[in-house]
């Protein structure tokens, strides 16, 4: 089974701090994604990556950056955390095979509170 591991289930940080959310997958997936989930808004894509050192903006990239130095690890960075970034963050990964993308597999999520 695919395992997508997010480093923290719960995280509390202060406004202005630099925050790192880590995600690791163990199935050699090329594609990795960061979403944020808010009540009434569903999941919204922040950033995604199709390969090492490659990144593309999703629908709501403002205030975030990402890093993918190794294939299995995709980090989300809040350069200067703000209270409106309090949310649930979900990491996902997927495989491209047979000319098609396979379904995304999700981590357990990190509930981040910015005080």
């Amino acid at each position, binding site marked *: 089974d695919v395992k997508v591991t997010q480093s923290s289930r719960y995280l509390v940080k202060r406004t202005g701090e630099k925050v790192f959310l880590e995600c690791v997958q163990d199935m050699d997936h090329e*594609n990795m994604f960061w979403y944020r989930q808010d009540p009434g808004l*569903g*999941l919204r*894509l922040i950033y995604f990556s199709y390969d090492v050192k490659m990144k593309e903006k999703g629908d709501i990239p403002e205030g975030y950056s990402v890093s993918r130095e190794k294939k299995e690890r995709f980090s989300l960075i809040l350069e200067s955390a703000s209270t409106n970034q309090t949310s649930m963050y979900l990491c996902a990964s*997927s495989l491209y095979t047979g000319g*098609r993308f396979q*379904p*995304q597999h*999700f981590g357990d999520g990190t509930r981040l509170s910015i005080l």
Partner: protein
Amino acid sequence: AQTVTQSQPEMSVQEAETVTLSCTYDTSESDYYLFWYKQPPSRQMILVIRQEAYKQQNATENRFSVNFQKAAKSFSLKISDSQLGDAAMYFCAYRRDFNTDKLIFGTGTRLQVFP
């Protein structure tokens, strides 16, 4: 721009009964994928079922089936013989085929199952 709409924020069903969750989407593409994901309380999001737009036959996975109406851009999920473990948030998602694995999610439907 593609959009996904889930008009039912909450639904409830009695154990062993059948419930249908609705989803509509807007796209000008002819080839795409549609998904239903399930997110149990405090647990990982998992794929329930998927449908490829070029297939006319509705997808089925055990007690879960879809009613895919391409012309109407409708993709509803039917859960038969509902079980307590079906209680979760259900998200409908759209993925354009070919060059992208970007998912667009609906806002979700919270399903409660009563004994």
